[in-house]
Every structure is written in C-alpha cells, then in structure tokens.
C-alpha cells in the first residue's frame, strides 16, 4: 500500500504480514543454478571439471580397488599384475610399518601406549566429556611418564630397556607429532607474551629467538639440535638420539606458534586489557583468564595450520637417522622379496593416505571447535 501522492501525511492501518520466501530460491535445482551454471563461463567450467573428474577418478579407483592385489605370500603375484596396487605388501609389512624394529615380544607396550594416548586424546577433545580437568591432568602429567616408562622400559618393573635405535614406524611419527604439539603451544604462548612484554630484556630475548629460528630452514634446526645440543649440556650427559630432533621440532614449531599467538593478542581490543586492569586483576590472571582465552580462539585456524605443518614436518626427522613412518615405508619397499614396479606407488599412496587422514581430522576438528567457541563472540 503506497502513500497517496496528494497528501504529505500517511498512517498505517494494518501491519504487513511476514511472507514465506519464494520457492525458486530454495532446493537443489536453485542451488545448482546459482553455484554451477550462473553464467556461460561458469557453466563451461563446471562441464570441464566434470569431464576432468570422470577422466581421472575411475582409473585411480580401479587401480586401488578392482585391479589391486589384496593378498599374496610374496611379490610374485604383484609383479604379474602391474596395473593394480599391491595391498598385500602393506598387509604383510603392517607390523614393521607400525613398530619399526621394536622387539616383537615387547610390541604390546607400544600398542598399550597408543590406546592410552588415543583414549586420553578423545577424552580431552570430546566436546561433552566430563571432568576434562582430570583428563588434562592425566594427559599432560601422568601420560608422558607412563608412555616413557612403557616405551623406553624400566628393568625393575620387568620392562626391558628398548633403545631408541630400534624405534620406528607409525608410533615414532605419533610420538614426534604429539611431543611437538604439546610442548610448542605453551612455549609459543610464552614467547608471544615475551615479545609483547614491557621488560626490554625479555622482549629482546624473545625477538632474537623467534627471528633466528624462523630465519633458518627446519632441516638446519634438526642438524643443529642433533649436533649442537650435546655441546650445551654438561660433559658425559649425552642426550638420546631421538630426543635431539624432538627438541628441535619443539623449538622450531614454537617460533611459528609465537607469531600466530601474537597476532591474536594484537587483534584483541585494548578495552579488554583495561577492563581487566580496572577490576584489579594482575598481569598473570589478566592474561590467563581474559586475554589468552580470547586471543587463542581467534587464532585457532593458524594454530591448527601449524599443527598440520608440524605433523607433516615430522617426516624430516628421517634426515638425522630417525625411522619415522615414511622412512620405514621407504625401507620396506626395498625388500627384495616384494620388489616390483607396483610396490613403491602402493607404499607411497598408503603413506599419503595416512598423513591425509590425520591432517584432515585435525582440520575438521578445528573447524568444529571454532564454531563452538565462537558462540560467545557472536554479536
């Protein structure tokens, strides 16, 4: 109802009803039209992509499933069928891929550690889980000790010593990633706070550390951790050969983490600091209760991005002689019993799948956590 043109005043006599949205703006057909065929160029691209997918995907799926060899006693069958993956090789080597050269009779210790770690991780990450403070205490304080005792051994408990020389496979990758993730975040937070500190010495030390570590390649950090760490420690105190790259990966990742966290600290409005200070909160409580919970949520995508990078960078520890999952896979493919043209593609495809599953899971989890923690910020 429009205002009549001949008078300046107009008064509404009845309310406008709220109407449902028109039909053509909803449904699969509308979605396809809006997203896939909105213009000539977009329609062409859609058709092109569809063709590309039809051209690439079926042969790959065929290679991995229909034409693949699922079980075989040795490489002979796989050498005879060269147009399919040789999953029999993975099945045959699975224990080596999981445990490396860890003594066969002691492998239950690795399995137990993995189960403990996985259950505690689920406890911590499950949104509705109860008593997560207890879970966190177990995960961060008890689990590392238990894992160390189980993996390395403790003679008086009847667990024989297993040298880290024998460690290898999936569990080495998981230990490396977990140690890196668990230690680099707190260290990165401290470095970020240090970089924004009012104390010049603390600030300078943080800046030097961050800029130096970020300024050299990860492999350099690994070599330095491997060769120089013993020089910093008292004579006769030889750090374990597996511990050295762990220290390297933590320091390297912490420097990147620090810059992520600093971004979060800087994007927080100054009023949050003032509000906390005006209430009489001290620096430590202000950071712990007000600033960091908000700053860290803001940079979850960046932090998880670092975690994913770290998870994949664990493959580089092979350079200083640690048998991570990829290195054991590499060793496994050299087995002459299995050697054949399909062995390496199969092995590396499997490795790629392994890394993808972990990284994709981290990515999805972070997306769901962002949604959940973002509730309070919605305006």
């Amino acid at each position, binding site marked *: 109802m429009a205002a009549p043109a001949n008078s300046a005043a107009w008064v509404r006599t009845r309310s406008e009803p709220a109407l449902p949205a028109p039909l053509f703006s909803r449904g699969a057909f509308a979605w396809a039209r809006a997203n896939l065929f909105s213009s000539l160029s977009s329609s062409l691209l859609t058709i092109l992509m569809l063709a590309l997918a039809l051209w690439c995907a079926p042969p790959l799926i065929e290679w991995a499933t229909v034409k693949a060899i699922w079980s075989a006693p040795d490489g002979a069958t796989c050498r005879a069928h060269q147009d399919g993956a040789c999953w029999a090789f993975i099945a045959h080597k699975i224990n080596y891929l999981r445990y490396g050269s860890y003594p066969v009779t002691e492998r239950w210790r690795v399995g137990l550690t993995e189960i403990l770690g996985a259950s505690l991780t689920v406890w911590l990450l499950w949104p509705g889980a109860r008593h997560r403070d207890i879970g966190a205490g177990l995960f961060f304080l008890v689990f590392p000790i238990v894992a160390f005792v189980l993996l390395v051994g403790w003679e008086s408990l009847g667990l024989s010593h297993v040298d880290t020389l024998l460690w290898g496979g999936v569990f080495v990758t998981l230990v490396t990633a977990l140690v890196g993730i668990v230690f680099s975040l707190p260290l990165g937070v401290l470095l970020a706070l240090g970089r924004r500190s009012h104390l010049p010495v603390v600030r300078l030390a943080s800046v030097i550390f961050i800029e130096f570590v970020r300024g050299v390649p990860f492999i350099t950090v690994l070599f330095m951790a491997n060769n120089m760490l013993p020089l910093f420690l008292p004579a006769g105190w030889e750090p374990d050969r597996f511990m050295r790259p762990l220290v390297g990966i933590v320091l390297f990742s912490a420097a990147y983490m620090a810059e992520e966290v600093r971004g979060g600290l800087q994007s927080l409005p100054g009023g949050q600091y003032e509000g906390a200070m005006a209430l009489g*909160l001290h620096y430590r409580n202000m950071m712990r*209760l007000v600033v960091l919970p908000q700053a860290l*949520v803001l940079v979850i995508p960046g932090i998880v991005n670092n975690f994913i990078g770290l998870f994949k960078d664990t493959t580089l520890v092979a350079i200083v002689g640690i048998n991570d999952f990829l290195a054991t896979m590499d060793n496994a493919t050299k087995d002459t019993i299995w050697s054949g043209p399909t062995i390496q593609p199969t092995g590396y495809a499997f490795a790629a799948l392994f890394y993808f599953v972990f990284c994709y899971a981290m990515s999805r989890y972070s997306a769901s956590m962002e949604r959940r923690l973002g509730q309070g910020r919605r305006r």
Partner: protein
Amino acid sequence: MNAIEFVGVHKWFGSFHVLRNIDLEVRPGERIVVCGPSGSGKSTLIRCVNRLEEHQRGTIRVDGIELTADVKRIDEVRREVGMVFQQFNLFPHLTILENCTLAPIWVRKMPRREAEEVAMRFLGRVKIPEQAHKYPGQLSGGQQQRVAIARALCMSPKIMLFDEPTSSLDPEMVKEVLDTMTSLAQDGMTMIVVTHEMGFARQVADRVVFMDQGEIVEINAPAEFFGAPKHERTKAFLSQILR
C-alpha cells in the same frame, strides 16, 4: 579525608599537554559530573584515578593512598575503585555471571559460591538477573552497560568512575543506564561521571566540573552551573549543547 585528591596534576601524551595543573577534591559520597568538549582531557582525568593513565607531575590520592609507580598501591586503589567504560569492556568469552564473579574470586579471593550470590544480588539490582547465564553478545547495549555496572559493584568499591557510559548506546537505551546510575547515587556512592547527559548532571550531581583544553575551567553546583555560568568558555559550551 577526601575520597579523591588531585593536587597540581600534569600529564603529557608525548609532547601534548593533556592535563594542566589539575586541582580537585572529591568528598566521600559526593557525585561529580565532568563535562567539556571532546579532547578536553575529561576521560584522561578519571583514568588517572585508577592509574589506567599515569600522571607525570603533581599528586593524586585515592582513599588516602598516593598513586605512584608502586604496584602494590595501584592494586590497592584498583580494588576500591570501580570503573564503567563507554565500550562496556565486558569479557565476551564469559557469561554475564562469570563476568561478575571473575574479579571477586581472583582478586578478593572470595569462594565461588559466595561470589555468585553477590553477583546475583547486583544483577538483580541492575534488573537483569534472568540474563545471568547468557553471553554479553546476546544482550542489548543498555543491558551490557548495566552488567558492566553490576560487575564493578561486585568488588564493593568505595568509588565509581563512569567514562561516558551512555555515549555508545542507542537513544532508547540511555534511560535505563542513567536510571541505574541515579539509584546508585541515591545510595550514597562516591561517583565521578564523565558524560554529555546534562539532564543527569542537573538532577544527580553535587558539583559539575567543566574542562576545556586540559584544564578545569569552572566547578559549580548544577543550579548555578546551568543557570548562571561564570566563565565565558562555560557559557559558550553550554550554548552549544543546550539549544
């Protein structure tokens, strides 16, 4: 003993002289409204009271404690002085109740149960106890500002500072915040309020302080301040805002 004393206070931002020779005494229970054009130093003045800003010359005493670089004294003063900001500065990641109990628990070391009781009492006082478990982002601006007042009150401060508490509110929400402040004033709270709400100044203030270019130009009771301003600059300012 005065609640707040400024004696010959100067402050500079870099080379800019923001506070010039400020002398002001606030008695316990007194309500002071500070007004003046923007950039006149009124916010800086009250931010010096709880040391969100540092003064460079002169003496500021709050509840008998002289403010220096000594962190202990700053803590003591901040425990006794509540502040309400233009932008509310509520903590968006905490519920309304948690916003109110945070400082009592961590600064006053109050048991959680007791802090929650206190918080609910003050949320009732600002008339939004039913919002206690929501997050700040789910509340209107006026409600958020009332929560901010309740949050400050939970520390049972002797002095309350208000830094343009209604300036970022939609017009229809200004009244609910002013009503809360008026009721607080009626209970005898010592208050310094920086505001452009001249109606509030007229009704509630014991004295009105007019600042311009970093100095106090005129201090007067509201009736004289609005009825018969003495200084030319006060007259000019009032003629601008009371049309």
